[in-house]
């Protein structure tokens, strides 16, 4: 898990499908990256690795306007949303987000800009390797809403021309931050 090669493979695949991948040295570097991309509000739902790393204060220090009270109204107004990642898959550049908590879904479906903090340790080779943690998530919780996210939202429904950003986020920024969490069962 988490070899340099894996990270490279993941980054390449993710970029190929239109995601931005940023190798952050530290959480504060990641926070600065995020703040620079935004003028409006940033939704920050609660998630374990973020709380542990005191993400909120890092973001605020970097100058982001952080919104932690997530409702349909605040989500509809926000420009961005940031979450952690449970784990990722290198071959397709995919993020896996356990999104049963509705706040996670609001933060990742409604705003135009999606930010995801990923510990490189959590990159698996492919979806077949992902089956086991998927199963664990299903065993742990009685109900699930789990999302594989691969790039920003897209369509080719008009004349088969690929167009980025339809109903979901128009931008997906993946921030590789070391030492956040190595547990695929937690975000």
């Amino acid at each position, binding site marked *: 898990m988490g070899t340099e090669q894996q990270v490279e493979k993941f980054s390449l695949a993710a970029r190929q499908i239109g995601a931005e991948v940023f190798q952050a040295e530290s959480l504060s570097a990641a926070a600065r990256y995020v703040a620079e991309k935004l003028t409006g509000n940033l939704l920050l739902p609660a998630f374990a690795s973020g709380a542990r790393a005191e993400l909120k204060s890092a973001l605020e220090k970097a100058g982001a306007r952080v919104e932690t009270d997530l409702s349909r109204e605040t989500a509809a107004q926000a420009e961005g949303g940031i979450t952690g990642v449970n784990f990722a898959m290198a071959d397709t550049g995919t993020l896996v987000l356990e999104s049963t908590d509705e706040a996670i879904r609001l933060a990742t479906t409604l705003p135009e800009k999606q930010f995801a903090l990923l510990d490189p340790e959590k990159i698996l080779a492919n979806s077949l390797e992902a089956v086991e943690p998927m199963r664990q998530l299903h065993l742990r919780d009685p109900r699930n809403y789990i999302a594989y996210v691969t790039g920003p939202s897209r*369509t080719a429904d008009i004349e088969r021309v690929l*167009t980025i950003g339809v109903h979901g986020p128009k931008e997906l920024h993946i921030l590789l931050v070391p030492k956040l969490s190595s547990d695929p069962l937690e975000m």
Partner: protein
Amino acid sequence: MNKQRNKDYRQRIDQALATPKLQDALHKFGDAYLMSRGNAFANYDFEAMRTEISAMKTGVRENHAVLLQQFIANAEAAGATVYLAKTAEDANNYIAELAKKKGAKLAVKSKSMASEETHLNVALEKAGTKALETDLGEYIIQLAGQRPSHMVMPAIHMFKEEVAELFSKETGKIEPAEIKHLVEVAREQLRQGYFDAEIGITGANIAVAETGGIALVTNEGNARLASTLPKTHIALVGIEKLVPTLDDATKVIRILPKNATGQPLTSYVTWIRGAVPCAGEEKELHIVLLDNGRSTLAESPHCQEALNCIRCGACANVCPVYQTVGGHVFGHIYIGAIGIILTAFFHGLENAAEIVRACIGCRSCVAICPSKIDLEEIILSLRETIGEEEGIGTGKDLVFRKVMRNRKLFHGLLRAASVMQKPVTKGERSIRHLPLFFSSLTEWRTLPAVADKPLRDVILQQPQQVEKPRYRVALFGGCANDFLYPELGLDLVTVMNALDVEVYYPQEQNCCGVPALYSGDKETAIELAKQNIDAMLEGKPDFVLTTCPTCTMALQRDFVEHLKDNPAWAAKAEQLAEITVDAAGFIVNQLDGADLFAKLASQEKVTYHDSCHLKRGAGVWQEPRQLIETAGHELVEMAHADRCCGFGGSYSLTSHPDISKQILKDKLNDIEASGASCVAMDCPGCMMQIRGGLEKQEMPVRAQHTIELLAEALKNS
């Protein structure tokens, strides 16, 4: 046959053919699709993957009742309400009732073919609930009041100008026909709907028995919104979407987007199990499992494999008929090859009666199907069923039953034709014009004249000098080689003799039965199978050689299939199948004889056309290329070498000549663009079509059978 229905169908074909823009779009899509698909599978073993999917889905069919119970129990344990709907009406009623109970004014929908199948929107509208399609393609179609013309890309037949016009009507301002802008308009127009709607309706690509959850494979993000914001989520799911475990679901997800659109993975895969939190409460999740003909399909021994389909839509993407006329002609609600089958079972045989004959039988869908479904075989068996119900047409009926089954009469008539045609052939080998109402047959290609003497006669006069033959082989000529191109059979004798193989021609052999089978007359096909088995096995040949891959498939596959339950014939059919082999494959694989021709030919620029049944039936495509190159020709590949030439037997003569002509045009363009002066192939049917087209267009390219090129090389030396 229903006259009005047929007339409407013909009109739709004419309309589609009169829209070159549509054909152009579908062709470009087909090319781009193959490119991106190739990239998506670059590091994967497609054959291994699809073998796994096929085995898994077959297992699901066999254990369906158990898995269904497991799924329902797990889904309910997670707080979902599951409803099993027998019919489309049943499903619609359940959903409409629910909408009423919720007092729902608005339901947002993400793309669901199952809801197209049941015409759910109409039912909801009646119940006072407006159904708003949010998938961009579906939204466009809904505004246009049309139905999808592709299962994955519903609005693939529409152009940005049309979309701009539709959107302008919605927004009340003039929206420019720029795709990026139009996508943005859709985003804005639909956004509020998710917040206002009381209900979100989705389909599902997979239902996982292990978890009781469903998975949605999507790109736009609308399904995520529709399954998150409204308080109630209804998922309408065909019962064939079941898979046993998360491992199996993952395998489907690995192959589906790659094969559907050439994407490694869609933007989103959403796994939902049970009633998840929603605005501080619990969401109400209803899973409506739709049967609507699927159980009947599961019981049909010839068609049940169609339930293995994972709805990738690829069978349409690569279909030359689809590319020529689109999904509004070649489909009902479901389109393309799988659409024919699903229509017959979900929407009734009568709705499939025309499109079941629109398949040209090229098997390109079979080669691309991620569930390894033999779509062509299923379509043939449906054609037979429809033939029984509606008749196959009196003229054909007479020819097949009364004439073809009686070999002497059939061949006698062909001999008579050779004499009677004299006024039109004027002694030439090609018929360039036919008089009066037959004229349309030679409008876009010449037709070969019936030979003065058939192969079965002339071959007897050909002296064969093989001292110590390695093998004695029986030649199965097939009607075209026998009566139209006897010289091809003689060339085969020359080539075989040079390889120390002796050839004889069993005189009792008859038509292989494919024309009857393709027209839905299986009885005649079975009768012909028996006649041919006896005829070909009688002289105890080492091998039976064919020059026509369609005949090869008949001898190798169809005869066995027809007679497998007949104890008197099954073993004999197997025996014949085992020793039957096409000529090019025989030379390379059995005789290891390519080197005999090394550098004998006077070098020519040759391009190769893969015959559908040779490449995708017999799996032979390298061998003829090897032979041509070894003989010293310069082989140049044309684009779409393995795309059908549009012949399809009676398809091009009577059932769909207009579509056939169009497909031939594509082939001629590819041949011309290759710059070759000769196009080689291994099928007399393709020769008839391609040679006929080249002659009519007066193109300076000759069309030859590979065996003819080899004989030529030998004579050269």
